[in-house]
């Protein structure tokens, strides 16, 4: 008997431990890594302890009554039922406590609302279900997608330490620099949140919201979208990588070089195999959330691509939909999200995967042409 109980017990324990080798039983808010996040944490703890103190007093009186004034102990009911002075006192004392809470809260809020003298501006745009980061004046612009493999989500593979909190490209920011964040959204409302920075701000289509941060310690800080934004709301994490300013300058240079290389890749000629390999990667990263890894989609919102008339039909129409999206549907315009080579690859992949065998390859140069051509016509239209 005893052994069975111990075995069961240790089995349960090991379940907890193995299941979460990483995890402590986290109980509280993080103090974070900015001055603001620390004052928020201190406010939180102050108010928490005030609530605990009030609770202890009120519940002690209540439980004292429950134990001592019970009928079974012969308690006789007294007859008092009104006392104006007491009522006034217990109206005024809480009011005083509230004022005492409001003062530091107001001070912190005023600090949070002062984005002046920012040294770096980053525009953050929420898309269903990814973030776009544009470093204004730095010519850097990229999307950040969840990078946790689907097999881990569907329990076919062991979940890694940063399950659901990892992305393909981090938002790299310099430490000890006041950074202004400008938030907006492309489709529905999202909310950009990193607990360690105590920044949570809604990204709203048609609005540009402002927030700021000054990170004090280098490190990787993880957060998530906080506002319900559709089916994959739970799968659009935020990962901030804070590095010292010198390292940040180096990163900027590397990132620019990488963007140039991607542009150059579109100029050379690609074989069908190359396009298919690259296309599959892009598809799984960007398209599979809606159209599903095997192209079956989730109709009616997300149509199937297998045997789809668009995918098997006129290539120009297929390209147009991928580049420019479909108005009034969940299909986004990918012209800015992917490079010309990636666009060509993914379209080629869709036209030749899962039994769709058109045998057609879309050349990256064709996409470059289209992107540039459209740019020109837009400019003409503007004049």
């Amino acid at each position, binding site marked *: 008997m005893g052994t069975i109980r111990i075995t069961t017990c240790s089995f349960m324990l090991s379940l907890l431990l193995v*299941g*979460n080798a*990483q995890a*402590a*039983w*986290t109980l*509280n*808010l993080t103090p974070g890594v900015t001055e603001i996040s620390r*004052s*928020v944490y201190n406010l*939180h703890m102050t108010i928490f302890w005030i*609530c605990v103190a009030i*609770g202890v007093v*009120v*519940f002690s*009186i209540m439980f004292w*009554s429950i134990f001592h*004034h*019970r*009928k*079974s102990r012969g*308690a006789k*009911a007294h007859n008092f*039922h*009104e006392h104006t002075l*007491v*009522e006034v006192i217990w*109206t005024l004392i*809480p009011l005083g406590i*509230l004022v005492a809470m409001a003062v530091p*809260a*107001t001070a*912190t*809020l005023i600090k*949070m*609302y002062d984005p002046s003298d920012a040294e770096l501006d980053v525009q953050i745009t929420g898309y269903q279900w990814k973030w776009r980061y544009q470093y204004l004046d730095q010519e850097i612009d990229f999307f950040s997608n969840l990078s946790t493999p689907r097999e881990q*989500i569907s*329990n076919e593979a062991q979940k890694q*330490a940063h*399950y*659901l*909190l990892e992305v393909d490209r981090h938002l790299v920011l310099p430490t000890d620099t006041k950074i202004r964040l400008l938030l907006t959204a492309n489709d*529905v*409302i999202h*909310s950009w*949140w990193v607990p360690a920075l105590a*920044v*949570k701000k809604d990204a*709203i*289509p048609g609005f540009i919201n402002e927030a700021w941060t000054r990170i004090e310690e280098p490190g990787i800080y993880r957060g*998530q979208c*906080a506002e*319900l934004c*559709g*089916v*994959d*709301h*739970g*799968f659009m994490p935020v990962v901030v990588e804070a590095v010292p300013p010198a390292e940040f300058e180096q990163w900027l240079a590397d990132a620019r070089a990488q963007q140039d290389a991607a542009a150059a890749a579109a100029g050379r000629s690609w074989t069908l195999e190359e396009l298919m390999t690259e296309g599959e990667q892009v598809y799984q990263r960007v398209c599979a959330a809606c159209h599903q890894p095997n192209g079956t989609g989730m109709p*009616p919102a997300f149509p199937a691509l297998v045997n789809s008339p668009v995918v098997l039909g006129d290539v120009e129409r297929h390209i147009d939909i991928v580049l420019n999206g479909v108005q009034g549907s969940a299909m986004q315009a990918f012209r800015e999200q992917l490079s010309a080579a990636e666009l060509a690859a993914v379209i080629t992949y869709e036209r030749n995967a899962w039994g769709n065998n058109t045998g057609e390859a879309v050349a990256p140069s064709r996409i470059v042409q289209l992107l540039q051509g459209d740019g020109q016509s837009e400019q003409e239209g503007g004049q």
Partner: protein
Amino acid sequence: MSTLETTTVTGEQHESHHHGPAAGIGRWLFTTNHKDIGSLYLWFSLLMFLTGGVMALLIRAELFQPGLQLVEPGFFNQMTTMHGLIMVFGAVMPAFVGLANWMIPMMIGAPDMALPRMNNWSFWILPFAFAILISTLFMDGGAPNFGWTFYAPLSTTYAPPSVTYFIFAIHIMGISSIMGAINIIATILNMRAPGMTMMKLPLFVWSWLITAFLLIAVMPVLAGVVTMMLMDIHFGTSFFNAAGGGDPVLFQHVFWFFGHPEVYIMILPAFGIISQIIPTFSRKRLFGYASMVYATASIAILSFLVWAHHMFTVGMPLVGELFFMFATMLIAVPTGVKVFNWVTTMFRGSLTFETPMLFAIAFVVLFTIGGFSGLMLAIAPVDFQYHDTYFVVAHFHYVLVPGAIFAIMAGTYYWLPKWTGHQLNECMGRWHFWLSFIGVNITFFPMHFIGLAGMPRRIPDYALQFADFNMVASIGAFIFGFSQLLFVWNVIHNVRSGEAAPARVWEGAEGLEWEVASPAPYHTFTTPPRVE
């Protein structure tokens, strides 16, 4: 003497004076009797409570472990949405209207509600509203999946086609609530027995009078906002569509102008019930009657001035944030007064702990915990960390489950012997109480921790550091959920059998409802009593 005179003067109405209920299903379909309609509301609410509860258990089952096991994210979102809508509009609100129907006429010495035919109508449109709402689960594209707060443009441009049915269902629920509220106000203001002055009204009646005014004020706002959605979806307007010059934040302002008073619509009648029960089992008059009335009215008025504390992260200007933060903190004052009054009522009383009292005491303690987390959420700079996390989920479940729902159960146990004529089975009542009390805390207390640790709400899958407490919460949810079968058993058992209950069911009970026999006759106070 007077009865004899009445009979001779209006002899032809004699038959209708003392008739009992009609036979068969017609009794329920065509009834204008406040007791029958009260029972219909309560049974309907119980059915919706169980339906919404099954959805909650599906949610908790999916969240038992990280990874996607049982349901797809799309269906998960439908479940969170439908669970919220059904619990708010189908379980809590109709339960309070049912209690109001049963008890208000008996408490103020009126023979029935002021507008009995409208009363029938306001109940009978509800099943249609929920049939429409629940049928969306079987439609192409699935049920509404944008959360019970249905923020635009997720609920307009990006919504499934079933959103139109959802809008229609909300309209019907709103009409039902408004008719119910009009009826309650008309009854309380016009049908009080001679001598039943306003400041003698039982607190349940007072709290419902104030709640009914809230309903009339905000239900049209809800109807307005869903109609604007309908226009955006089908008639080419752009109220909430930024691309057409509209404003998605406008939706939130209008919604929460309804939504915050709605929160108090779900808690003020609970305050009323608790204010009836605690004095009874303390055998002592309620402490600070007048201040209780004023506190309830203050909470109701403040509820119109705090809506944007649900929107601290939308990017309001600093002055807006400060105004809504201060106004929200103020609510703690009248709410505190109520808690202090309840505790002082118990102080130096002669307490016993029958099932209704157990639920009432649990209400005071756990609602206060929900109040504390509410106060923390009011602090705007800290709310940036709490907003849209499980901390919020913990907060509003603490005020709604061991708050509103425990009060409804306390009220049901308190008045059930009056309705059925049978004494409670105390043993089974206690089992139900203790399992619910333990279950509710195991479910919702850990949610404070996972919220503070950083888990957003409304996600079907989560990072590994949230795993332990999610598992605990899911276990608690199943304990709480299955304990409610005991409640169903208790109610059905009490309807069918039990010791005969006297007119004054509880030793310390005061009020007109305890003057009539148990079970209450089909018609009570056809001759108004005189209140001294």
